[in-house]
């Protein structure tokens, strides 16, 4: 084990660059997933005929597959049906597909947790279903969804590491490149990489906890 050799300024900078890619990919994916998952969740909550059944089937399938498989499939299998994605878009697409399915469930159960009387009262005071959804149900549900969405973001940050299988230049991959130079760097680099994930994720989990406490 060679800590001094592993923690040179160049290596640290290289790891931080990797971490920056991790954060960017995770952030873009969570935003896209929130939009797509939000739409899916709302459609399923509103029980739009046919569409919500089809979406339920897709969500259940995606949710029950390993993310690693989805990443692998997006990058290596889609070119066989002429959908060729570069590494970074492929990682974002795969993470977004998986995370949208997860978030749609968070959003749907958040919507369902709002008391039925709210919708009935809104409707009987003359709002249309859509108006009631937008002005009455969603604002209340969104507040409840924040903590689970933060925990999904933590999962996503960790899951981004799976994109090493398609050589996404993120934190874990940059770690691999450094300890690829010498076995002596392996443990020091694994420890440092773990700590970097830990610091960001733990801070986020504290934020989620704080928000949860505030609510109750």
């Amino acid at each position, binding site marked *: 084990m060679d800590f001094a050799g592993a923690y040179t300024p160049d290596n640290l900078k290289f790891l931080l660059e990797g971490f920056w890619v991790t954060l960017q990919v995770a952030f873009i994916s969570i935003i896209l997933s929130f939009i797509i998952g939000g739409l899916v969740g709302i459609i399923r909550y509103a029980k739009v005929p046919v569409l919500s059944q089809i979406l339920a089937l897709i969500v*259940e*399938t995606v*949710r*029950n*597959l*390993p*993310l*690693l*498989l989805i990443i*692998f*499939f997006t990058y*290596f*299998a*889609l070119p*066989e*049906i002429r959908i060729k994605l570069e590494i970074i878009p492929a990682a974002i697409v795969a993470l977004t597909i998986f995370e949208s399915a997860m978030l749609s469930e968070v959003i749907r159960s958040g919507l369902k947790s709002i008391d039925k009387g709210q919708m009935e009262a809104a409707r009987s005071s003359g709002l249309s279903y859509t108006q009631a959804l937008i002005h009455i149900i969603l604002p209340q549900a969104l507040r409840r969804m924040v903590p689970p969405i933060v925990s999904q973001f*933590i999962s996503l940050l*960790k*899951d981004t*590491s*799976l994109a*090493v*299988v398609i050589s996404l230049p993120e934190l*874990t991959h940059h770690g691999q490149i450094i*300890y690829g130079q010498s076995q002596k760097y*392996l*443990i020091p680099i*694994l420890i440092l*990489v*773990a700590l970097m*994930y*830990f610091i960001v*994720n*733990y801070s986020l*989990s504290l934020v989620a906890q704080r928000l949860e406490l505030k609510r109750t």
Partner: protein
Amino acid sequence: MLDFSILTENLDMYLLGFKNTIMSSLVALVSSLILGVLIAIMRIAPIKPLNWLGTAYVEFIRNIPLLIITFFFFLGLKLSGLYAGTLALTIYTSSFIAEAIRAGILSVPKGQMEAARSSGLTYGQAMRLVILPQAVKIVIPPLGNQFINLVKNSSILAVVAGLDLMYHGDLISSRTFVVFDVYIFVAAFYLILTIPLSFGVGYLEKRLAKSN
């Protein structure tokens, strides 16, 4: 259309991977349950250093990627992919299980412990005979979800040549030069495991919610 000859001609490899995925998941499930219960107990036992140790374990493991833990065992300790992956799965899942169990135990009203202690039971007896049986009901659905995650996460074995379903998919696709169809069948095998599990967990959640 899907080429089903890929499935039939490589069925033995698919099934071998499928079997290893099930075995690894089951071993990791049982060991992470045991470890998770121990850590949950450490976190709520009335001994401060143990609480601290349990919390540190859970918070650290939960917040780092499974892949890093796997690399530690595979590259650092030079275990075989199958062992390294299963061990990493155990460690990783145990932190989530510990957290689920702790939440379950804490949701049992405090009066239960006080009543049990004042009727002469020791802390250990009260925990075993009074608190845990009540906590089990609350804990079962989240544990079920953890098991589903465990089965999906077991695909991490493929990254370290762990002989699981994903890994065999990789072998088959390098043999047949087909990726798309090979992985559709791999996905089907995963769904055979995870879909019934999710339905089971959903059913339990509904039933337990009704009984409350």
